[in-house]
C-alpha cells in the first residue's frame, strides 16, 4: 500500500506523544513493505523534504498567519493541502491517515478529491482534555466529530477512548478499531551510563530519583505529584524529583514547588531531546504518571521498556496499559496521598519492584511492539479499502 500519514507533529517538532507515534508507525509500515509519506508542518532547521529510514517526509510552510489559533489552524491546513498535492503526485496514495482534528480539514478535502479512503486516529478529545468551554472549545469538539464522521475507519488507542469516541460523538462501535500506541523496545536496551546521566540532573548515586515526563498542562496532574514532595521527602530523605517537559503551567508549578519548602529536591528540566530521554528514563528509580485524563499514556510504556517501575493514575487508557500489582501500581488521580503511597510502596520493597519490572517488560515486548501495532494498523487500512464497516 501507498500510505499518507498526515500529522501536525513529527520529529523534531515534538510536543506530546503524537510525533513519536506517527514516526514509530511510519517506520513499522515501511518495514512491512509499504510505501509511507508523512505530510507535516515545518520546524526551524528542517528541510522541506527528506527520507528518514525509508519514510518520505514532506514538510509544509505556513506562509500566512493570524494571531487567532483557530484561524491559523485553518490557514496551515490550506498549506498542508498544497504539500499533500505534491506528495500525492510523487506517491499516488491509496489511503490517507490523519492524526487528530488539527489536520482534519486537509485530510477530509483529499478524501473527497482523490476518492480514497480516510482513516482517522483520535489520540484524545477536547471533551476529555478540558471539558467543553467557550466557542473555540466547542468548535474543536465539532471538528473532532467531523473527522470521525468523515473517516471510513476511526482508530482509538484504548478501550477507554473507544467508549469516549462512540459515546460522545455517536460513532458506531463497528466503525472503530482499538490499536494501542507502540514502542521501540530495543531503543531501551542500549547501554547507558546511568550514574553519569543522573548526576547531570542533580541526582546523586545514593538518591532515589522520581521521574515525571510529559507536558506541563493540567491534564497531566503534575501538581499532585509535586504536592507529595514533603511526605515522600520525610520518608525518603534522599528522594529527588525530576520533572521533564514544557507547558504553559510551568511557572505555576515552579511556584507550587516553592510552596512545598522542598524546591531544592525538585528539578524542572524543560524539554530534553529523545536520546537524552532514554538515558534519563533508564536512570530513574520510579516513573510517576499522575494524569487526571489520559487516553493512553505512552510514557508508562517507555518506563516499562526501560525496566523502571511505574506508578500511574487509574484513569482512561493508562489503567489499561498498567495492570495494578502486576506491571505497575495504580493510584487515585488527584490524590497526593495515594501517589505518595504508590511511590513509597515501590521504593521500599526491592523484591516487589523487581517483580513489577519483569512483568512490565514482558508485557511491553509482547503487546506493544511497533511490529505488532504496524500489522494491526495495516489490517484497518485493508478494511477501509474494502469499505468494510464491521
Amino acid at each position, binding site marked *: 500500500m501507498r500510505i499518507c500519514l498526515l500529522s501536525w*507533529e513529527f520529529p523534531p517538532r515534538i510536543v506530546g506523544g503524537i510525533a513519536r507515534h506517527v514516526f514509530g508507525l511510519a517506520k513499522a509500515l515501511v518495514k512491512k513493505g509499504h510505501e509511507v509519506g508523512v505530510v507535516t508542518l515545518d520546524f526551524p532547521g528542517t528541510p522541506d523534504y527528506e527520507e528518514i529510514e525509508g519514510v518520505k517526509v514532506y514538510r509544509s510552510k505556513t*506562509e500566512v498567519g493570524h494571531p*487567532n*489559533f483557530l484561524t491559523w489552524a485553518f490557514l496551515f491546513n490550506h498549506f498542508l493541502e498544497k504539500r499533500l498535492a505534491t506528495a500525492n503526485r510523487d506517491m499516488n496514495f491509496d489511503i490517507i491517515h490523519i492524526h487528530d482534528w488539527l489536520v482534519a480539514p486537509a485530510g477530509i478535502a483529499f478524501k473527497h478529491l482523490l476518492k480514497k479512503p480516510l482513516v482517522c486516529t483520535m489520540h484524545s478529545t477536547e471533551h476529555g482534555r478540558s471539558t467543553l468551554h467557550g466557542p473555540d472549545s466547542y468548535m474543536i469538539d465539532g471538528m473532532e466529530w467531523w473527522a470521525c464522521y468523515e473517516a471510513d475507519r476511526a482508530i482509538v488507542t484504548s478501550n477507554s477512548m473507544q467508549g469516549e469516541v462512540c459515546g460522545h460523538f455517536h460513532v458506531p462501535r463497528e466503525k472503530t478499531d482499538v490499536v494501542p500506541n507502540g514502542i521501540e523496545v530495543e531503543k531501551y536496551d542500549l547501554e547507558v551510563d546511568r550514574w553519569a546521566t543522573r548526576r547531570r540532573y542533580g541526582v546523586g548515586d545514593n538518591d532515589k530519583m522520581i521521574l515525571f515526563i510529559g507536558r506541563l498542562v493540567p491534564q497531566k496532574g503534575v501538581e499532585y505529584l509535586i504536592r507529595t514532595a514533603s*511526605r515522600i521527602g520525610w520518608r525518603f530523605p534522599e528522594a529527588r524529583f525530576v520533572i521533564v517537559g514544557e*507547558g504553559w503551567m510551568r511557572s*505555576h508549578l515552579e511556584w507550587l514547588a516553592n510552596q512545598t519548602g522542598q524546591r531544592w529536591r525538585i528539578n524542572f528540566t524543560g524539554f530534553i531531546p529523545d536520546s537524552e530521554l532514554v538515558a534519563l528514563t533508564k536512570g530513574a528509580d520510579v516513573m510517576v504518571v499522575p494524569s487526571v485524563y489520559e487516553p493512553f499514556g505512552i510514557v508508562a510504556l517507555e518506563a516499562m521498556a526501560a525496566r523502571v517501575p511505574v506508578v500511574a493514575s487509574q484513569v482512561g487508557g493508562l489503567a489499561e496499559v498498567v495492570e495494578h500489582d502486576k506491571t505497575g501500581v495504580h493510584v487515585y488521580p488527584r490524590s497526593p496521598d495515594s501517589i505518595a503511597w504508590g511511590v513509597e510502596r515501590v521504593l521500599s520493597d526491592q523484591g516487589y519492584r523487581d517483580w513489577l519490572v519483569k512483568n512490565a517488560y514482558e508485557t511491553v515486548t509482547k503487546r506493544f511492539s511497533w511490529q505488532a501495532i504496524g500489522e494491526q494498523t495495516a489490517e484497518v487500512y485493508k478494511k477501509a479499502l474494502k469499505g468494510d464497516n464491521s
Partner: protein
Amino acid sequence: MSGYPPVAPSYKVPEEFLFLCMLHNIGAVNTTRAITIEEISKWTERETSEIQYNLSKLQELGYVLTIQESRADRFHVSPSGIRKVLTLYS
C-alpha cells in the same frame, strides 16, 4: 488539614504565554520571518509598551530570539518557544 501545600485558588494561562502564541500564529517563527515591535503591534492591536514588556520576559526565558538591526530590532519565536506554544493545543 492534609499537610500538603495548597493548590493556588485559580490559575490561568499567563499573559506572556498567550502573547507568545500570537507571535507564533502570525508566523514569526524563524530568522527570515522575524518582525519588529511596530509590526507586532499592527498584527495584534496591542500597545508597544505591553509588547516590549512581554518580549523581554520571553527573551529571558529563551522562548523569543532577537535579531539586532540598525533600524529596529526584529523578533521571532525560538524552537523551544514553538514547542512551548504547541503544548497549549496538543
